[in-house]
């Protein structure tokens, strides 16, 4: 308890009672107690003056070269360190190939058409698997986030599934589906779907409660609430879930391709990696790793990065971030 609370209450209204005393009625007194403007035109003018004083002028966006040059510089530095390490000759050249060896190997593989084939096969599978995962996970996630008993029942299971490495499903999938594309897709689904669902649920959990109340007041039905209010409000979290879902499906895909080779399963990047291992050709292995990495980076830069930036900028959430 504060020692002396009452005077605080006493002090403030004094200013108001002073004004009460000066009861000298005059025409057009511009005090807050009476009408302050002298008509609709006057009001409109004052308001537009305030509006132009208070609202942001929109800044034009220029191409920011540091965004392009800095990552390239970082890449060059890393390659130089790699080359320097190799030229020290601490390890046998066939165990630790230099950047040029890997580049040569990449050229050879390109000539054989293996780069194109494996990147295309994996990318196609990754994208198809991911799109199907999104189509399954989105309604399920919304349902779980909106219906409390379902959430209580299945929430822990979905979180658990996210922790379980999806590689663990490979043996089961091979037994069930044999060496077919179904195996690969199954593993991708088990990796991507739980993480998209979780992203969506946590996105929904972070919605300010005010938005739901606005939706209710505006008379939204349950479905309208989910589609017009909850989903767009949860979009930043949902996008985070999608990004993670993509990462999980790409990783699961590689794991499945490395383990499940042969049968009717086509030749993907994981298969290339496994081939390199069987031939003990480190340059092929490195080339495959770099390709897997490059696809991941490109998808982030060309797809998720721009979408996320646009989303945050439109909501005014980008100011002050280091993006």
């Amino acid at each position: 308890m504060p020692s002396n609370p009452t005077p605080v209450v006493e002090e403030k209204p004094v200013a108001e009672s002073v004004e009460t005393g000066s009861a000298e009625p005059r025409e057009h007194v511009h005090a807050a107690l009476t009408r302050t403007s002298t008509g609709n035109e006057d009001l409109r003018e004052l308001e537009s003056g305030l509006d132009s004083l208070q609202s942001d002028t929109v800044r034009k966006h220029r191409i920011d070269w540091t965004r392009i040059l800095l990552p390239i510089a970082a890449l060059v530095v890393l390659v130089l360190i790699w080359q320097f390490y190799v030229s020290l000759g601490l390890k046998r050249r066939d165990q630790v190939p230099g950047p040029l060896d890997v580049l040569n190997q990449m050229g050879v593989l390109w000539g054989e058409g293996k780069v194109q084939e494996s990147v295309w096969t994996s990318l196609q599978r990754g994208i198809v698997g991911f799109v199907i995962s999104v189509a399954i996970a989105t309604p399920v996630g919304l349902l779980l986030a909106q219906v409390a008993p379902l959430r209580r029942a299945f929430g822990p299971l979905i979180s658990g599934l996210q922790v379980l490495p999806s590689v663990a499903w490979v043996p089961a999938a091979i037994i069930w589906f044999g060496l077919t594309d179904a195996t690969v897709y199954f593993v991708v689904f088990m990796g991507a779907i739980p993480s998209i669902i979780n992203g969506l649920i946590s996105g929904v959990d972070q919605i300010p409660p005010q938005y739901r109340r606005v939706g209710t007041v505006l008379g939204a039905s349950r479905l309208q609430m989910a589609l017009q209010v909850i989903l767009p409000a949860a979009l930043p979290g949902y996008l985070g879930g999608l990004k993670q879902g993509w990462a999980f499906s790409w990783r699961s895909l590689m794991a499945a391709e490395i383990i499940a080779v042969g049968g009717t399963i086509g030749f993907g990047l994981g298969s290339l990696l496994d081939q390199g291992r069987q031939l003990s050709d480190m340059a092929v292995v490195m080339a495959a790793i770099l390709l897997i990495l490059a696809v991941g980076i490109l998808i982030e830069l060309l797809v998720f990065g721009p979408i996320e930036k646009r989303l945050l900028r439109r909501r005014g959430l980008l100011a002050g971030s280091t993006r």
Partner: protein
Amino acid sequence: MPVVLEHLGKRFGDGAPVLDDVNANIGRGEFVALLGASGCGKSTLLNIIAGLEAPTSGALEVPSDGAAFMFQDAALFPWLTARENIELALKLRGVGKAERRAKAQELLELVHLGAAGDKRPHELSGGMRQRVSLARSLAQDRQLLLMDEPFAALDAITRDLLHDELERIWKETGRTIVFVTHNVREAVRLGQRVLLLSSRPGRVVQEWAVTEEHRTDAGLAGQLTGVITARLREEIRRHAK
């Protein structure tokens, strides 16, 4: 009578009642200011009238089509532009697509924001946001409009302007407005009737009529403000130890 409150009571969990035996009648087309100290249950009462919360005792009569609501913070959806926010309200009300655009523009012009329709909430000033929010609540097209301290966070000049604006719109549209505030001047400036809500428990303890003379005569309005302020202070002092 659009709103009738009879012996309304509300308690959260098993704490002390927040509202107890609230009685009020609000007529069609009336502008009622609901005044009370911070934390006395004004928002709770408004939420009950809006149907966002249920009373624990008593009965209330509200229009069957519900009420439009304007929140203290504008509560606009940040992923929509000003116009789209208004259009969403129209859409959820069932207005057809073709009509929505014209109606939204009309409402934007009503709050003097015809040119700012394509801006997003974060690009607008606080006062502009509240005007969009007002336009959105008008888009709901309900006879009853509930306002929960909508101008509390604004600077004095903007607030004075919005008072004029709100009065104009009230006269143009003939809405019934219940306006919650903890600011005595605001209550006197806007309300035709000022209801004072006591604190712990909240109950309508007194009411004053504000006439057209008070709108133009600062001295008269000042006097009334003084009287109401004194009564409010008395109410607050009751809780001092």
